[in-house]
């Protein structure tokens, strides 16, 4: 058991170690001081945070319906929820363009009625990230809801609490670790999102060019800069995730 576990860990960690070994550390401060780098780092953090918020607002209710309701065809719904996970991200981006693009199924009305055009905007980045990240949250929260003891909910209901009050004061606190884990996963996925973003939102400095897009573009001309940018993204994601999970999961009974 231990040997395959170690191999598994090495498989996940060694590529990252290789990046660190090949990092031109001396260039790091210089790269970090570049305004484009700071700009895309800020854009990445803001858009990933907004995308995670969107995932929470829409994903938690969806997970609750999947776990608690007696709807027919829940199996099908659950399979549909995972579709964005299965599709290659570039296809996710094309799908979003075909739906929300200027000539998209819905997008043409957004444009004609409200003058809203999503592609090439920061909103498009958030939508692309939320689209690929939400399945992680839904799956994680649904698992937590299924594992939670429903008798607490029943007890609250017999004491006269409404459904919404029960959900807010009993169910949600019980599954908080699952929600936190799902949110952390979604945030990580959103932060690293590349294919759907570049397809649906394009790439323009300060508006839609997030860190992963900057890394890919830097590979074209300056592989060293690409490695440094990757390390920056890596460090920021590890820091954010460690903080999030540490804060949210502390005090949780094990």
């Amino acid at each position, binding site marked *: 058991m231990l040997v395959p576990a170690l191999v598994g860990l090495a498989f996940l960690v060694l590529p990252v170690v290789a990046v660190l070994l090949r990092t031109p550390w001396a260039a790091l401060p210089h790269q970090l001081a570049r305004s484009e780098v700071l700009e895309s780092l800020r854009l990445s953090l803001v858009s990933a945070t907004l995308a995670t918020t969107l995932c929470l607002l829409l994903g938690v209710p969806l997970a609750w319906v999947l776990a608690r309701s007696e709807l027919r065809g829940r199996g099908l719904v659950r399979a549909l929820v995972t579709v964005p996970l299965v599709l290659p991200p570039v296809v996710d981006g094309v799908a979003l363009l075909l739906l929300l693009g200027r*000539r998209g199924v819905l997008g043409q009305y957004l444009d004609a009625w409200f003058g809203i*055009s999503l592609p*090439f905007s920061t909103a498009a980045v958030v939508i692309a990230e939320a689209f690929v990240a939400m399945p992680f949250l839904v799956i994680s929260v649904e698992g937590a809801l299924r594992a939670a003891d429903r008798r607490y909910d029943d007890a609250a209901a017999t004491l006269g609490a409404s459904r919404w009050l029960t959900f807010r004061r009993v169910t949600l606190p019980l599954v908080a670790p699952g929600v936190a884990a799902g949110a952390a996963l979604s945030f990580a996925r959103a932060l690293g999102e590349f294919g759907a973003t*570049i397809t649906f939102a394009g*790439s*323009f400095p300060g508006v*839609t060019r997030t860190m992963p897009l900057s890394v890919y*573009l830097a590979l074209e001309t300056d592989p060293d800069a690409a490695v440094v940018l990757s390390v920056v993204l890596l460090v920021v994601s590890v820091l954010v995730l460690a903080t999030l999970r540490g804060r949210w999961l502390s005090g949780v009974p094990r």
Partner: protein
Amino acid sequence: MRLHAACTARPRLAQRARATRPARVASAMIGLACALSMAACAGGGSPGPVSSPGAGGPAPAGASPHLSGTVTVFAAASLTGTFTALGHAFEAAHPGTTVRFSFAGSSALAQQILAGAPVDVFAAASPETMALVTGAAPTGREVPVVFARNRLEIAVPAGNPGRVTGLVDLTRPALRVALCAPQVPCGAAAAAVFAAAGLTPAPDTLEQDVKAVLTKVELGEVDAGLVYRTDVIAGGDAVRGIDFPQSSAAVTEDPIVALPDAPNAAAAQAFVDLVRSAQGRAVLAAAGFDVG
């Protein structure tokens, strides 16, 4: 038989008399004759005539030039369609041969060749990339020749919703415009034409490669994009191309070479000859390349 002897002798002839124009013409004519005979041999043993662009005359009697085995061709991604078609033509003309392609960004291909990939033919999207492989001043058979040129065109969606007529429209902030990022070749070319026109573009997105720009035009997400002429043609009915005078400021050149240490040297040279033949030029011209 004599034609085929000329085919095999050709590289040396071309090498010796490289500088003189009549020799070059002669060499080109021999190349053309080789292509004709190749097309003529396409049927192998079958008696029926072989139809092929460029093969107008009666088929000269003769065996195939004894080419066999695999020809490995590394070619710039922009050549995918044309070279795939020429590869089929080559295999038909030389039964027993297989043309194996690797299409990718030419600088990535150049790195692979330098790292020792066993390659017979290299076709790059720029002389600079080719120089990475052949050196700045190649001699002998290594001399790459430019076989096609490409230039930028404004691509607009069918119906031209932004009423684009020229390069100046791409400076209008109200218009949705996609360009390549300046870090990639098509973006550098775009920068050159805007500089030549004295204009500052107002792009909404700077894409990673030219196909991404084309996709955004095809889907109607942008009102205009700058792509290569060949991309406009590849876009079919969904895209319209608008020529502009400043495009001459950034003409790309595609060189090809049979590599000196090609594992299958004879077939490598034959493939290069096919690309430069009337048949090859017809295929390239149909795709929008300038072969004149």
